[in-house]
Structure formats: C-alpha cells, structure tokens
C-alpha cells in the first residue's frame, strides 16, 4: 500500500519555518549584542551603565578594563547641551 507521505509535507514545512525563524531571531539578537545574549531585567541603573559603556567604547555592550578614560569622556555626557538661539 502506498504511504501518503504528501500529507506530512505541511508538518515538515511548519517545523522548518519555525526553526528558521527562531534561528534567525537568535542570530539577530547575538549579532546585535556583539556575540553575547541580550541583557534582560535591566533597571534604570543598568541602562545608565550601558549608556556609560557606549560613551566609553562606542557600543552599549562593549567592555574595556583600562583604568583611565579616553579623551573627551568627561565632557561627552548628555547633560551637556549646546544652547543656540
């Protein structure tokens, strides 16, 4: 008796599409966070520190352990706004 394998095609399609979508989402999250998983449960403190990391390294997940800040760090805070007319 021939097995109705065509009936299993939709299941295969669903599995493949869920799998591809999930993999791409995971890859996108990793690429956006420089190879690490995304931060979760961040509070205002963590957001502030990630902002500071962006000022120090250029990316909000970048890390450096130099004790001295690069040139221009002390004046790059967002509190400095330029008054124009």
């Amino acid at each position, binding site marked *: 008796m021939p097995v109705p394998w065509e009936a299993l095609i939709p299941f295969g399609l669903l599995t493949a599409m869920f799998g591809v979508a999930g993999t791409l989402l995971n890859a996108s999250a990793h690429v956006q966070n420089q190879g690490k998983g995304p931060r979760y449960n961040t509070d205002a403190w963590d957001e502030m520190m990630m902002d500071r990391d962006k000022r120090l390294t*250029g990316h909000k997940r970048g890390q450096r352990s130099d*004790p*001295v800040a690069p040139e*221009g*760090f002390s004046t790059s805070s967002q509190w400095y706004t330029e008054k124009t007319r």
Partner: protein
Amino acid sequence: MSLFHDPATASTPYKDPTPLPDNVPKVAEVGTTSAPLKSASFFIGAHCKEFNEDFMLCKQENRDPAHCLKEGRRVTRCAADLINKLRENCFKEFEEHWSCLEYNNQEFYPCRKPEKALNKCVFEKLGLSKTIPGTPEGKTPVHELENPIFKRQQK
C-alpha cells in the same frame, strides 16, 4: 532652544565652553566599563572604604557639586589605583570573571568558579577579601556556599 549633538556623529571634537578653573586639579576619569567594574566592586569597597564614606558624608551635608570636589577626586584616584593594581597582579583571573559576568546578564551567581579564583588571587597578592555587608549572623555568605540554590543550569 537647546540642541544635543551626539559625540559619536560629530565632525569636530567637542570643546568645553565652561571648563573648570585652573586651580582645580585635573584627575582622569575611571575608564572601566560596567562588567569589570562590577567584578572589582567588592574590592573597591574594601580598598577605598574611607574615601568612599568621606564622599558620601560630604554629599549628605550639601548636594552642590562644588562642595565635594576634593573628596570626589580622592574617590576617583583610589578606584583607578585599585583597577591598576588588579590588572598588574591578577589580570587573567579578573578578565575571566568579568567576561563570565558579561555572558550572564552581569549576575554573580553563574560565575562562582572564576570568582573563587579571583578572590584567591586578590587575597594573596593584594590582601583584599570580599565581604557582603548584609549577611545574617552565623550564616555563610552566598559567595562561599558549597551547594547554592541559585546556580548555573549546566556545569
């Protein structure tokens, strides 16, 4: 009207229109980002306790920024000094611990193994140890528990 110019997209470097007067000594800011700073946090607390407490009490008197500049400079110098010492003496353990923190949402509980190695190295070379201030009397601190409840899923 006020405009904010993002320093990342600016074409010319920012020139501070109101720099501090020359009689204020210049101290370089601490350039460590969040993960190494969190890794070194308890050691900064142990090493710089007096300066930090001075600064906090000074701020409690008066929150004007100009009032606590001297204590602030001391805090910055002490923290930068400790980061320097950590890098000179225990660079590998330090880097391993803060890399582990970065991979785990900057939480301490999955990174106890690198933390034990770092604590051991820092205690031997710098004489600083990590104490958690709110630990209940008679109970082991959470970083010294042998079988913690919150741990990594995988070994």
